[in-house]
């Protein structure tokens, strides 16, 4: 039997059917659902008289549209179309009998934070959701990726996905990270190297000492942005940290089932000598705190660098860079640390967990913001409660940050949290496309520590200067 990668192992354990041409039906263990990409799928089921095949494996939560301010339980406090989508999910969850965390439930939050928090995400499972950042769950050694609404309907009806196997890519981060450098900087730096298409057609396995050293939350941050490098899914092999995180969570296996699961999970690693089609190695020590300067997640540079010029690039990127600079209102040669910031957003499925909030609070303790507005949006009601217990919320509020309720918030302008045209934001989210946070809004992606640093100085700042 030839050596297999982790991806090969999970794939092989989930093929329910294989056609002659290699097209497979991949069985899905966990189907996460949110309100934006599911209405048409449930409607499709209704129109064809079909049921959800495995409601016990289907978990829904509203996150993209919901306001993050008090009183959001009341639909009158949402725009009409947002209220319609959330109401549709409420009804669909009830009618089809799936697991559901409504807005009024403290466990509600961003779907990719709630899944792991509640113990739905387990090593070796296949996890899908109508959202590209489903890659997050790969941190557990789960095969997890985003799907479109038609595929959501297909999974609801058949609990399978029509898939052809991707190729294997290894991203190894060796050595140790320097102080001030985080999981966010790792994942942005990888995309800076590969470009937004470097992983297209691949499933990435992240490995190496610097990856092993990350906490589960750090690993989730890294895998979250696999899709921004083009890879559908990102995986990290499970280890003791993974098992410790999962143990005891509401939907994690218990007792004898736990022991059986553990035995299986310990087989989830890449065999010696397994083949990877593409390999990228980055030294942990070489990674600096980074920011994005442009309108693509691949536009990554250390905070110590300057705004690039179109002439620094080749081919189609030359024009793209000029377009980005115009949109972002930046001049080549400007030190990145001189770029003034209007707004700071700490949150999102990338960096909305308790460790992210701790990192930001560490910087903000006893300081005041120098930006026009700043908000912290915890990733779930439970993260929020924990942050309040630890006194982090007080630190944020005293610094001048708005302390919000859980949701996708300012990551993407589908709810009231949006940028005005040309408003410049340091954000701990995952996309800096034109208009992502609001029409004409200017996004710089950073780690939570870097966002906090920018908040107190009023400009993009090297977090190491304020640590």
């Amino acid at each position, binding site marked *: 039997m030839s050596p297999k990668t982790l991806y090969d192992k999970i794939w092989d354990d989930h093929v329910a059917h294989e056609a002659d041409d290699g097209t497979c039906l991949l069985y899905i263990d966990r189907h996460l659902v949110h309100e934006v990409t599911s209405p048409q799928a449930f409607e499709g089921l209704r129109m064809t008289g079909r049921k959800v095949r495995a409601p016990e494996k289907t978990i829904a939560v509203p996150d993209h549209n919901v306001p993050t301010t008090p009183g959001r339980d009341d639909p009158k406090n949402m725009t009409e179309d947002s209220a319609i989508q959330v109401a549709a999910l409420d009804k669909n969850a009830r009618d089809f009998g799936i697991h559901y965390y409504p807005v009024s439930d403290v466990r509600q939050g961003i779907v990719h934070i709630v899944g792991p928090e509640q113990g739905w995400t387990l090593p070796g499972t296949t996890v899908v959701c109508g959202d590209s950042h489903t890659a997050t769950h790969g941190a557990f050694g789960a095969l997890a990726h985003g799907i479109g609404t038609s595929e959501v309907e297909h999974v609801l009806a058949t609990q399978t996905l029509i898939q052809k196997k991707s190729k294997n890519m290894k991203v190894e981060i060796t050595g140790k990270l320097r102080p001030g450098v985080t999981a966010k900087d790792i994942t942005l730096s990888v995309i800076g190297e590969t470009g937004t*298409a470097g992983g297209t057609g691949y499933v990435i396995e992240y490995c190496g000492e610097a990856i092993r050293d990350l906490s589960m939350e750090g690993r989730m941050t890294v895998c979250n942005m696999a899709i921004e490098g083009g890879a559908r899914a990102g995986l990290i092999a499970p280890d003791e940290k993974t098992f410790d995180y999962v143990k005891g969570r509401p939907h994690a296996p218990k007792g004898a089932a736990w022991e059986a699961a553990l035995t299986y999970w310990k087989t989830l690693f890449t065999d010696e000598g397994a083949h990877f089609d593409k390999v990228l190695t980055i030294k942990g020590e070489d990674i600096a705190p980074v920011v994005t300067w442009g309108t693509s997640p691949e536009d990554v540079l250390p905070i110590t660098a300057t705004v690039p010029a179109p002439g620094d690039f080749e081919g189609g990127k030359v024009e793209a860079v000029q377009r980005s600079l115009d949109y972002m209102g930046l001049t080549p040669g400007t030190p990145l640390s001189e770029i003034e910031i209007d707004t700071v957003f700490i949150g999102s499925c990338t960096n909305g967990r308790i460790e992210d909030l701790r990192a930001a609070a560490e910087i903000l303790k006893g300081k005041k913001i120098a930006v026009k507005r700043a908000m912290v949006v915890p990733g779930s009601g439970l993260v929020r409660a924990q942050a309040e217990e630890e006194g982090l919320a007080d630190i944020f509020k005293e610094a001048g940050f708005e302390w919000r309720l859980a949701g996708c918030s300012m990551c993407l302008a589908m709810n009231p949290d949006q940028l005005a045209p040309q408003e410049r934001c340091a954000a701990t989210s995952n996309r800096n496309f034109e208009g992502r946070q609001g029409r004409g809004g200017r996004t710089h992606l950073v780690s939570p520590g870097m966002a906090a640093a920018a908040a107190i100085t009023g400009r993009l700042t090297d977090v190491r200067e304020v640590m």
Partner: protein
Amino acid sequence: MQKFTTLTGIAAPMPLINVDTDMIIPKQFLKTIKRSGLGANLFDEMRFDDDGKEIPGFVLNQPAYREAEILVAGDNFGCGSSREHAPWALLDFGIRCVIAPSFADIFYNNCFKNGILPIALPQDVVDVLMKDAEKGANARISVDLDAQTVTTSDGEVATFELDSFKKHCLLNGLDDIGLTMEKAASIDAFEAQAQAARPWA
């Protein structure tokens, strides 16, 4: 799903790389609970100004391309989100074929679920098609899915590759779910075996 066999139509040139899903259909338009109607907001932020007036320079606003059925674009078309609203918007506008040197994975797959044919061709071939498209209303490009060819207005023919299963479904307008239901026995068998082997999952 509507089948795709052949298409002869006006091709709109969009010589941009990394056209992302936020450009194709900005997030505020994801609030619909239907699949239809998004054509009005296709490329919204490039097509309309802050007051909602058409930006004359944008390709799809130009008289020659308002009825475009084909789009010719740069590398990594459709990168970003898994939102199927992107192909829905293209389809609702009237575009049934996108030609580019490369596509983002999820967008590429989503196209096939909606009767849209995404065609990947080498950069130098796309360059020829881009120039052809730039001729405007005089230039019609032809696509033949069965033959896997793209023909320029001058009669130059290029062939493209694609997965045979995807081709088969698109040519015949087949419903994925119906096809999968035919394999229900395999799914039942898998579930039974997995339930025994990994009951916690």
